Each structure stands twice: as structure tokens, then as C-alpha cells.
């Protein structure tokens, strides 16, 4: 089971490699990338260096081309695929069918992974992508229970990759327009959710308020820990009750599922967080490397160490973690 870690820049990529990632995923510095944030991502020059570092350490590099091509602009997505092939990256992670089609025809030797943004949640959807394109691995959306993940694994020959740790999208990925409803910009169209340029913080008589494009997302009283106003994690009023009506600020953590995922033949566990710091990448990679190695050494004796969870909690939104949709009760 491959440990796949995120890198938003070269220092994070090196950190991931140095701390035991089997593979690292990155994205280009443009809107072909669903983590298209200021100050992040890889220019051609940085990509060269990334490939060199990965090669010299005998690891794998995946590049995410995981937004949807705009009309009249598809060349930008096609050039991104060409660059992956030219640089000899190990896999391109793609969401748009037109881009998958191009990659399949133009670069038959380029390994293609179906991005989580394509939202393939069932065996027939997986069949659609594997029948029509060169897809050898599918990244599963974070909407499936562990039982459903196992069922899928039994019913397909394609490799499956799952999210193991990090910020939790509670909506089926690639099928959420909440961000564009409030700001005009969504992950699918511009590669950003709840973009930072729309965020405003304000001290008011009612407490500290976080707003996204002027819409009140949350309000904090003194002593409450304030979090980034990702719009699905605010407190809202439903039927006169104010609560986290969609989701609490919390992160996904599946350390305890390692044995089940390994038994289901899951090909890779993915750490979320290309927008996070190299320090985050270092800590998460270290903990997950240790956990996977412990499991491999003696599967029967595998237990999650409380120290691992503590370290991960400190890196998590709201400093708490959840099993998310993997655990049926969360749903």
C-alpha cells in the first residue's frame, strides 16, 4: 500500500520524500490544478527539480490536472498532459473526460489516474472510465463507507486509491458548487473553494465574524477557536437552532483503518494538503510512514498509537479528527 503525500512546493516535496513518502503528488501553477492558490505549485523549472529529486530517491511523482477544461481553452489542459509525458512523471491525475481522451490517444504510455473530482463512486462509473480511457487507478471520493470501499474493491480490477488523512470534503468531490454560489468561483471552474481573496474577518459587538464574499459564515465568542471560513464548516441557523448544520471543522484520520484498507487491496492511501506547509507534510508523512511500516512488520499486532493521533490532531482543522463517511454513523 503506497503512501502518497501532497506537495505545494519544492521544499514540501523534498520533505515528503525525506520522511518516507512512496509517492508525491503536485500540480502546475495554473487553473488546471484544483489547488490553484497564490504562492503555491510548480512552474516548469521547479517541476524539473521535482522530477530530479524524485528520481534520485527512487520514488514516484503524480501530477494533478484536476479541473475541467474551459471552452475555447482546452489547449491549456492538453499542454499540461504533454508536459507530464515529456517530463516522464509516473502518473497524471485527471478529472475531465476530454482531457482523459486526449491523454489516452496522444500519450498511450502515460499512466492515468482518475481524479477524485471525477466523482466515480460505483462500479459502473468506474467501468465507464476504464472502458473508454487508459485509466489504471481510481481515486475514490470521500462519500463511501468502508463497507462500500471493500465492495468496490471486490468488484473491480482497477487499482483503488483512498483519502487517508486531511481536510474533509463532506460533499462528493467535483459535485459541489457551494463556493461558486457564494463567490462565483468553484473547484471545478477555477480550482479553488472558498477563495482567500473573498475572506474577511471583523470584530463586532456580536463577536469575531468570518465572512466569505460578505456572507456571514461563522461568529466566534471570546475563547472560541476561529477557523478558516470554508463555507460548509460554518455555523448556520436551521429551524431556529444555530449549529454546524453541514459539518464541524474537523479532519479525516483513518489510521485505525489501515488493516482493513490493506486487506481490501487498496493500492494507495492519500494524504490531503497541498496547500499546507512543509512542516505539515513532514509530520503527517512521518506518522503515516511509521503506521504503515508497523502494520507491514506484524499485521496481527497493529494498534494505533495514541502519540500518532495526538500528532495528527495538532495538525487538524479544529484539532479534532473523524473517520468521516467511512464510518456509517457519520453519515
Amino acid at each position, binding site marked *: 500500500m503506497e503512501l502518497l503525500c501532497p506537495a505545494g512546493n519544492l521544499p514540501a516535496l523534498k520533505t515528503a520524500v525525506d520522511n518516507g513518502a512512496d509517492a508525491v503528488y503536485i500540480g502546475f501553477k495554473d487553473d488546471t490544478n484544483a489547488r490553484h492558490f497564490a504562492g503555491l505549485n510548480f512552474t516548469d523549472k521547479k517541476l524539473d527539480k521535482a522530477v530530479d529529486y524524485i528520481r534520485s530517491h527512487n520514488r514516484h511523482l503524480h501530477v494533478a490536472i484536476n479541473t475541467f477544461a474551459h471552452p475555447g481553452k482546452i489547449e491549456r489542459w492538453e499542454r499540461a498532459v504533454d508536459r507530464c509525458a515529456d517530463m516522464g512523471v509516473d502518473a497524471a491525475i485527471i478529472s475531465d473526460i476530454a482531457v482523459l481522451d486526449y491523454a489516452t490517444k496522444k500519450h498511450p504510455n502515460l499512466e492515468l489516474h482518475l481524479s477524485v473530482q471525477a466523482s466515480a463512486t460505483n462500479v459502473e462509473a468506474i467501468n465507464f472510465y476504464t472502458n473508454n480511457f487508459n485509466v489504471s487507478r481510481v481515486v475514490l471520493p470521500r462519500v463511501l463507507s468502508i463497507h462500500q470501499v471493500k465492495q468496490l474493491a471486490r468488484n473491480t480490477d482497477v487499482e483503488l486509491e483512498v483519502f487517508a488523512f486531511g481536510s474533509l470534503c463532506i*460533499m462528493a468531490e467535483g459535485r459541489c458548487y457551494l463556493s461558486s454560489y*457564494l463567490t462565483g468561483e468553484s473547484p471545478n471552474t477555477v480550482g479553488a473553494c472558498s477563495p482567500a481573496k473573498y475572506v474577511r474577518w471583523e470584530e463586532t459587538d456580536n463577536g469575531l465574524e468570518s465572512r466569505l464574499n460578505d456572507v456571514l*459564515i461563522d461568529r466566534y465568542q471570546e475563547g472560541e477557536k476561529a477557523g478558516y471560513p470554508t463555507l460548509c464548516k460554518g455555523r448556520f441557523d436551521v429551524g431556529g437552532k444555530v449549529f454546524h448544520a453541514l459539518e464541524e471543522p474537523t479532519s479525516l484520520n483513518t489510521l485505525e483503518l489501515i488493516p482493513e484498507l490493506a486487506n481490501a487491496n487498496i493500492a494507495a492511501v492519500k494524504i490531503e494538503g497541498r496547500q499546507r506547509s512543509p512542516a505539515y507534510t513532514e509530520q503527517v508523512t512521518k506518522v503515516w510512514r511509521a503506521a504503515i511500516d508497523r502494520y507491514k512488520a506484524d499485521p496481527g499486532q497493529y494498534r494505533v498509537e495514541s502519540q500518532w493521533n495526538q500528532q495528527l490532531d495538532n495538525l487538524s482543522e479544529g484539532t479534532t479528527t473523524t473517520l468521516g463517511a467511512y464510518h456509517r454513523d457519520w453519515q
Partner: protein
Amino acid sequence: MKYALGPILYYWPKTKVEDFYNAATNSSADVIYMGETVCSKRRELKPKDWLGLAKDIADSGKQVVISTMALLEAPSEVNVLRKYCENGDFVVEANDFGAINLLAEAKTPFVCGHALNVYNAQVLQLLVNQGMQRWVMPVELSRDWLMQLQQDCQDLKIRDKFEIEVLSHGHLPLAYSARCFTARSENRAKDDCELCCINHENGIPLFSQDKKELFTINGIQTMSGYKYNLLNDVESMRDLVDVIRVSPMGMESLEVIEQFKQSVEHNIKLDLPHDRECNGYWHQIAGLETVSL
């Protein structure tokens, strides 16, 4: 221009559904979509009930399309989908690529629903080759986006191979989750939901703490808080859009269809209540905004 009634996105009692479709057969709708698209636990009508109702409506001369689920997880849900895809009588609206796989295999013509990520002409070309007859534009896309896309379709020589439909009225489905937010709002687990969404005929409004109507909770679906309304934008839909879709909210939606028809045919501008309505997406700005003409 054709007019379509989208599938009912809420959970209504069986008699209400039947009354609605009885009335719909006498409405100005040319196309009627029907079937459960949100949650597989909503079984007031079972697949054979939907197909039976579909036959009755088809007899009245309307085009009937069977709409299918947007988020399919359990194998049992895929089995129901398979039944619809192999129905043999009706065109099917695919809201997941799993449906397209089955429909292409069964060589059943299909409508590509708005829940599918189709953002450019190259994808449409691929889907036309698999049997797509009509495409419903993703709700977050704009007129500008559609114009460029249509230009690309002309360049690829596929513009005359399918129709373009735009969801033009009703709460917009914005997101799909494993979690049921209706059950959560009533402090129930999803597995123990007791189908409580049947008590909310147009979903549950979700407000910001300063009382702005942000979203509408509808089971696993999160919808726009405001009603989308393109009634005063029909002029800018001419030559771009083939089918106008109204999403059913009740009997009044049948009148809305007639209003769209009047507006298109007689160029009638209506005095709209803009309060709690929006048209931002069509104008390439935040969806909840309103551009007055």
C-alpha cells in the same frame, strides 16, 4: 423553444406526486422528467410505479424522460439504475457516469443531466458518440460559457446533434453528500432517518446567523437558498438554448412553465418578485446574486 418539467427533487407523498403529474399532462410542458434522483430511501413510488406513471403521461403526447440518481454508492442502487437503463421504452436522464456506461451498452438514447461534469464541447462530442441526445448544462455555468462552448460545438460540427437545456427556475441543486443533512437537522442518524424529508415539501431553509437565506437542505442534497429565476433572461437564451427547464416546487410550477412560454412567444416582461430569487450564475457572477434587466 421547448419547455420541460424537471424531476421532483423533494420527497412528496405518492398521492401528491400523482396529482401533480395528472395536472402536468394538461400543462404547457413538452418534456416531463420523472423519477427519484436524490435518495434511494425515498420509495413512495417504486420503479414500477414510476414506469407506470411514465406510460400514462407518454400517452398524453408529452415526451417522458426517466431521471436517475445523481449519487450512487450501494450495489442495490446500481441495480435499480440498471432496471431503468434497460426499460426499453423511455429516454433516460443520466446523472452519473455509471448510467452512461449502462445506457451506451444498452444503446438507449440519453439526456446528460446537470449533475454531470460536462464543461466543454470535446466532452459533448464524446457523449454524442455514446448516444446523448440532449445536454442539461451544469447549474454553475453562465451564458458566456455557453456561447463559447456552442462556438466550439460548431467547429466540431456537432451542434445539430443534440439539444441544450438550461435549468431556469427553482432551487438549484448545488452539492451531493454521503451525509443526510435533513436527518442531521433533526438529530437523527441517516440509517434511522424515518424518511423525515417527507415533512418538508420544498426542503428546509438554512440561514446565516444574520438571517440571510443561504441554502436549502434536501436530504443528501444542498440546494440554493434563493430560487433561481431566468424568466426575465429569456431574450438572452434565444438561439442558445433549446429547452427551458422548470424544477417542480408544487402546482405553481405548472404556471411558471406557461409564464416562460408567454415570455418567449410574446416577449412579455413580467414584474418579478426579486425578493429571495437570483440569476447570478447565468450572468457569470456569484450564483446568489441578482442582475435586474
